[in-house]
């Protein structure tokens, strides 16, 4: 072959192709070199990439690939063996590295893929948490709103304010367009629009209560979405073509006071509901969310409770007003009654006087007339006049007394009095009358009967006189026994009378009086009527005896006032009858000390400074003390006589002596015996002088023995002028004086 030295440009027809290949290889190499650089740059920038070793491998692979392509540039022309060698080396290396990388990627790619999956998972989780967070926030907001609303609602007890506040707060919280409350009317057939948020004075829209939409709302305790076109939701004429917002309605239970059950919230027991309607703003595309509905339900319940509290308050206010009115009315009625009683009493008092005066004149003059010379017919006439007027006088007295007794305005005059002397006086009064009718009267006083008692002496005597008088009146012959004793507790317990409840106590005793006569007796059938006013036995025998029929009624009243009981027993007509009564009297020394005028309690207004001419008898065997006492009394102006022995005393004592002072602790003279003798000598109380014992002994026994024998007072020696002065004052005023010991 010819060695052609012609370097012919080897640019055949595929020279263009060669050129393009040349350029492509160049760019590929460029790219292949720049990619790892970029990779390294960005990996250096990020801190997290975990596969650096892989990157290096990859980089190497790419670099070698690039080198290969680069070296390819020289192989288009004739190239030396070195280039071929370098090419080969490069290719070999590239093959090794790429195979290694391929093998490595088998491990790596699943890892990379799973990273992606985890990332996706985490993103989902984050989204979910975000959602839940949103939910919690809204719930918390709702809770806050509810609390605030509740606080607002419950801060007042006024019904109107509660409802108004509810609407306002709800409107604000939920950004409502309109909020309305429909209340049931009295007839419970219609719902009436009572409150709205934006209209100040809602005109009385009413809606029948039995609409289906309303029933739907009332039947569940949830907030229910209703159509904006339902009658309860159409509150004002809608202008324009706005899309009305969603409407929700909820029932508000109206609880009655009696509906409060602790366990079951009154689903079943309440019948009345109000309707609350809430409207979202129109054109807002807002929707009712669950939490908003829950809020509305909770608020409705709270409103129910607040309303019931308001109702309770109203109720109690009304009850209080009613009570006040009733109080005023009662007060007025009482005052009227009091005025009436006052008027009646005034009338009685006047009539008392007016009626009695002429009566007295008649009686007095008739008795005077009786004393003059009269013909037998005249005498008969005068006697009849006298008898009739006496009867009339008694009747007037009885009627006046009874009317006072009836209305309870009669009060007993409680004082200490001598019980024995009351009976003795009655006995003395009755004896002459009884002896005229040839009746014998026996008085039997029990030994343990207290001498002194506390009670109303006048009324007791009136009662005894009446009872004994009846016995005498209705007996034509025979005898009358009067027995007086203290009723013992055993016998008291047997009493089961309807209105008699004896109570034992240390301060009181029950006096029992029994009057038995052998007279005409009483028919057992008439016994219950005896004590009624104006009822009389109509039998002929009693017709003539007179009597107005009031006596026993009055006695019964008196006995009742003295917390006692009166009753009559009789076997029948002609068999006599027994009248019994029990009255409660007080013990004089054991009862309230303050009832007795004690010496230390000197009532200054009543103390006389001098007792001029007061006749006093002093008995004392000790000459010195006798003269001292005499001097004392004379200093006070008294007219004093002194004696030193019992006989002298009995000789000297007379009705003129008003007070007797005797020394009772003198041996040899029995002062007590003397007192008893004095009592026998002067049976009438107003004739007897006041008996006072002077003693140097301070003990209860002395005091008791003095009281027992009927002394009116006991004083401790020595006596000062002041003491004597007040003693005499007390004695002359009250006739009783027991010094505190």
């Amino acid at each position, binding site marked *: 072959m010819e060695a052609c030295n012609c370097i012919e440009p080897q640019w055949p027809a595929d020279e263009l192709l060669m050129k393009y290949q040349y350029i492509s290889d160049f760019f590929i190499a460029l790219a292949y070199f720049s990619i790892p650089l970029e990779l390294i740059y960005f990996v250096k920038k990020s801190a997290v990439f975990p596969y650096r070793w892989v990157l290096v491998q990859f980089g190497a692979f790419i670099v070698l690939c690039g080198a290969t392509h680069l070296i390819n540039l020289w192989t288009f022309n004739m190239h030396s063996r070195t280039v071929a060698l370098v090419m080969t080396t490069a290719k070999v290396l590239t093959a090794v590295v790429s195979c290694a990388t391929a093998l490595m990627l088998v491990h790596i790619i699943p890892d990379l893929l799973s990273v992606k999956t985890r990332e996706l998972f985490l993103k989902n989780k984050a989204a979910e948490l975000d959602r839940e967070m949103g939910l919690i926030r809204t719930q918390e907001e709702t809770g806050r709103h509810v609390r605030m609303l509740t606080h607002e609602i419950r801060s007042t007890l006024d019904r109107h304010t509660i409802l108004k506040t509810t609407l306002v707060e709800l409107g604000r919280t939920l950004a409502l367009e309109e909020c309305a409350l429909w209340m049931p009317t009295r007839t419970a057939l219609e719902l009436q629009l009572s409150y709205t948020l934006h209209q100040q004075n809602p005109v009385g829209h009413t809606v029948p209560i039995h609409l289906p939409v309303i029933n739907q709302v009332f039947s569940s305790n949830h907030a229910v979405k209703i159509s904006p076109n339902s009658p309860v939701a159409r509150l004002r004429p809608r202008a324009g073509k706005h899309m009305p917002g969603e409407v929700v309605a909820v029932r508000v239970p109206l609880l009655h006071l009696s509906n409060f059950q602790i366990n079951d919230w009154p689903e079943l027991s309440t019948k009345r509901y109000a309707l609350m309607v809430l409207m979202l703003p129109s054109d807002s595309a807002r929707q009712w969310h669950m939490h908003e509905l829950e809020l509305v339900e909770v608020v409705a319940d709270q409103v129910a409770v607040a309303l019931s509290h308001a109702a309770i308050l109203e109720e109690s206010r009304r009850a209080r007003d009613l009570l006040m009115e009733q109080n005023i009315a009662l007060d007025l009625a009482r005052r009227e009654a009091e005025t009436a009683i006052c008027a009646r009493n005034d009338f009685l008092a006047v009539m008392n006087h007016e009626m009695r005066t002429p009566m007295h004149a008649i009686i007095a003059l008739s008795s005077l007339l009786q004393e003059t010379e009269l013909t037998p017919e005249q005498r008969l006439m005068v006697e009849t006049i006298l008898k009739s007027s006496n009867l009339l006088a008694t009747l007037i007295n009885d009627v006046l007394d009874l009317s006072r007794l009836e209305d309870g305005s009669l009060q007993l005059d409680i004082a200490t009095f001598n019980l024995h002397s009351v009976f003795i006086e009655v006995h003395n009064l009755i004896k002459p009358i009884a002896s005229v009718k040839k009746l014998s009267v026996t008085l039997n006083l029990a030994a343990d009967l207290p001498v002194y008692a506390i009670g109303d002496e006048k009324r007791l005597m009136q009662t005894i006189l009446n009872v004994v008088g009846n016995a005498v009146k209705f007996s034509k012959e025979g005898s009358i026994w009067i027995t007086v004793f203290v009723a013992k507790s055993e016998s008291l317990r047997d009493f089961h009378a309807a209105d008699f409840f004896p109570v034992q106590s240390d301060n009181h005793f029950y006096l029992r009086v029994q009057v038995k006569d052998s007279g005409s007796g009483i028919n057992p059938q008439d016994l219950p009527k005896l004590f009624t006013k104006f009822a009389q036995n109509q039998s002929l025998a009693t017709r003539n005896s007179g009597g107005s029929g009031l006596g026993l009624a009055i006695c019964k009243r008196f006995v009742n006032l003295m917390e006692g009981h009166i009753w009559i027993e009789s076997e029948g007509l002609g068999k006599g009858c027994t009248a019994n009564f029990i009255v409660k009297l007080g013990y004089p020394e054991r009862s309230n000390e303050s009832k007795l005028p004690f010496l230390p309690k000197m009532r200054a207004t009543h103390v006389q400074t001098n007792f001029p001419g007061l006749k006093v008898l002093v008995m004392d*065997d*000790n*000459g*010195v*003390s006798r*003269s*001292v006492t005499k*001097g*004392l009394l*004379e*200093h006070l102006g008294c007219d004093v006589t002194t004696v030193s022995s019992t006989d002298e005393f009995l000789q000297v004592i007379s009705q003129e002596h008003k007070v007797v002072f005797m020394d009772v602790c003198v*041996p*040899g003279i029995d002062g007590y015996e003397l007192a008893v003798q004095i009592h026998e000598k002067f049976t009438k109380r107003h004739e007897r002088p006041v008996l006072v014992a002077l003693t*140097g002994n301070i003990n209860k026994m002395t005091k008791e023995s003095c009281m027992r024998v009927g002394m009116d007072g006991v004083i401790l*020696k*020595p006596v*000062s*002028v002041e003491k004597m002065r007040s003693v005499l004052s007390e004695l002359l005023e009250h006739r009783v004086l027991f010094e505190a010991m």
Partner: protein
Amino acid sequence: MEVGQMQRQWVDYTKSLFLEGLLDGQFLQLQQLQDESNPDFVVEVVSLFFDDSEKLLNDITRALEQPSVDFKKIGAHVHQFKGSSSSVGAQRVKNGCIPFRNFCEEQNIEGCIRCLQQLKQEYYLVKNKLETLFAMEQQIVAAGGSIPMLELSF
């Protein structure tokens, strides 16, 4: 001595009697009872007391000397003596009677004799003092003055 001085002396003397316990409030009462209608009331009562007491003391002495002592009678006498002494306000005499009564009830002769001695002592003492007092009063009255009123607070 002029009246004022005598009166002061009288007051002091009386006060001393009270302070010593020989007299008590009852004596004051007696003095209060003395007025124009009864000018010698105190003297009269006290004289009566002296006579009574002499008699009583004699009786008691004689009764105690008897072979068989009648304690009841002595008791009665002592009771009388107590009564009169308390009526005039002779405090110590009255207090002396109390144990005497007890001894009488116990029938204790020694006790009674001792009490009698003491009683006699007290009695003569108070008698003496009162006689002096009355003498002073007479002097004052003779000199033209009047007996001052005693205001004693115990």
